[in-house]
């Protein structure tokens, strides 16, 4: 399906396939013919055959559809917006967050709270960072607005826990320092698009 087709929301004017419905019988003879046709058409047996065939497919040809969820999981899209992750810089291992506060500002459900201070190198340090997941609507604005790609949406969608706070501390969301080499660059919402280089234009300075 082309993009043009995909974006066409004029539902009423699209090409629909009309079912070839029989006309309802008018005379008694027509009704009789319809009854006979419906009685002796092997449609019911087609139905039986289909279910039996699918049973054979499932049992003997390995076409079982069930995903045994807690033991096996389906892959999810990189654009999936689950519990946030805080990424680190690959080179130094420092967290990427520069404490700019944009995510706190843009958050439409006011669930991000952060406090920053200057550390001894006069560099901004995040002293406290929490996300209230009781309020978060997973809109993804924070990930989109983050200039450093520091706060992103991760893949952790199993959010049942004993306390809401379980996911919400900065340390919980931050990539563990020993798993730094496993850290994946974020592909989803707000990430740099694959053709970003082509889209960069010269900044018009000559006003």
């Amino acid at each position, binding site marked *: 399906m082309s993009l043009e087709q995909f974006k066409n929301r004029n539902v009423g004017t699209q090409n629909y396939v009309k079912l070839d419905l029989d006309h309802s019988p008018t005379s008694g003879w027509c009704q009789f013919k319809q009854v006979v046709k419906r009685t002796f058409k092997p449609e019911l047996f087609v139905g039986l055959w289909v*279910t039996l065939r699918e049973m054979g497919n499932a049992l003997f040809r390995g076409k079982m559809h069930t995903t045994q969820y807690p033991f096996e999981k389906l892959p999810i899209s990189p654009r999936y917006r689950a519990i946030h992750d805080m990424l680190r810089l690959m080179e130094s291992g420092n967290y990427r967050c520069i404490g700019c506060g944009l995510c706190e500002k843009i958050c439409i459900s006011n669930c991000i709270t952060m406090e920053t201070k200057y550390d001894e190198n006069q560099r901004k340090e995040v002293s406290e960072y929490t996300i209230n997941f009781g309020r978060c609507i997973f809109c993804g604005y924070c990930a989109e607005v983050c200039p450093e790609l520091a706060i992103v949406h991760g893949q952790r969608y199993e959010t049942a826990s004993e306390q809401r706070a379980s996911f919400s501390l900065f340390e919980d969301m931050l990539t563990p320092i020993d798993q730094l080499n496993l850290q994946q660059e974020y592909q989803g919402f707000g990430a740099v698009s694959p053709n970003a280089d082509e889209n960069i234009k010269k900044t018009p300075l000559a006003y």
Partner: protein
Amino acid sequence: METATMLPEVTAAGVIIKAVLILAVIAAIAGFGTYIERKILAFMQRRLGPQHVGPYGLLQLAADGIKLFTKEDIIPQHANKIIFAVAPVITAATAFIALAAVPVFPDFTIPLLDIYVPSIASDVNVGILFVLGMMAAGLYGPLLAGMAQANKWGIIGSARTAIQFLSYEVVTGLSVLAPIMMVGSLSFVDFNNYQADGTWMVVYQPVAFVLFLIAGFAETNRTPFDLLENEAEIISGYVTEYSGMRWGLFFIGEYANMITIGVIASIVFLGGYNDFWFIPGWIMIIGKIAFSFFFMLWVRAAWPHIRPDQLMWLCWKVLMPLAVVNVVVTGIVMMIIG
């Protein structure tokens, strides 16, 4: 006739042992039927079905049993309490009473006590009518349950019970009538002996067989005709307010009825427990009953259910005339040949 005199005398102790045997084994099979149903329906929809309780989920039955027994037993405030409590018992009891006149398991003698246990608990010579009548009486369970529970879904369920019963009962009787005319007896044993030469009754009476199957589906409330408790339309119909073991009794009754219909279909139409080539008769009858049980599940997986008015249309305007014509034609042919 001579073999009949050879058999030891049937004592009261033997009949009681037989009754307990039927009750225990059929109730267990009926419970196990729920597992088989879930498993087969799952396979037909390419799912796995229950499989975490025990190997392949076999102990699911025990888990369900524990759940049913420990569930809170709720009787609604405005319900008619006596009738509400009696209704599930009617369904389960009639299903087992019907099995009293059906030959299940071979006869044997308990060695030490010298008690002869017959193959039919009560060998009434009108067996087939007794079984059908008792299964019909079983429909009082859903009817009373629906009316007693002071719930509108229940009332709709019991109204549907009444119309379904009145519709299919005629077809059941008339469809069985033609084989009865050919055999000239109402006893299951005579039906079995009539087909001892290897020609099944289906060959002579295909129309009656199809009619009986359709009516049997209606009698057991299986899917094309599961109007009484159709979740999509009337919540749960007559079982809306039931919980725990009272609810469980309805389903034990339903599955016992499925087995009974399987037994009748296999004895009357499918050659009974006669030997087939080299296969002994007891394997044949178990195989036939198992297949008819499977067929009911298969149909449930494949076919949609119909509306009440369609059921009445089908029974009164199509099946009943067909059954009458079948009876008349059978009579004429029998008169000409015999």
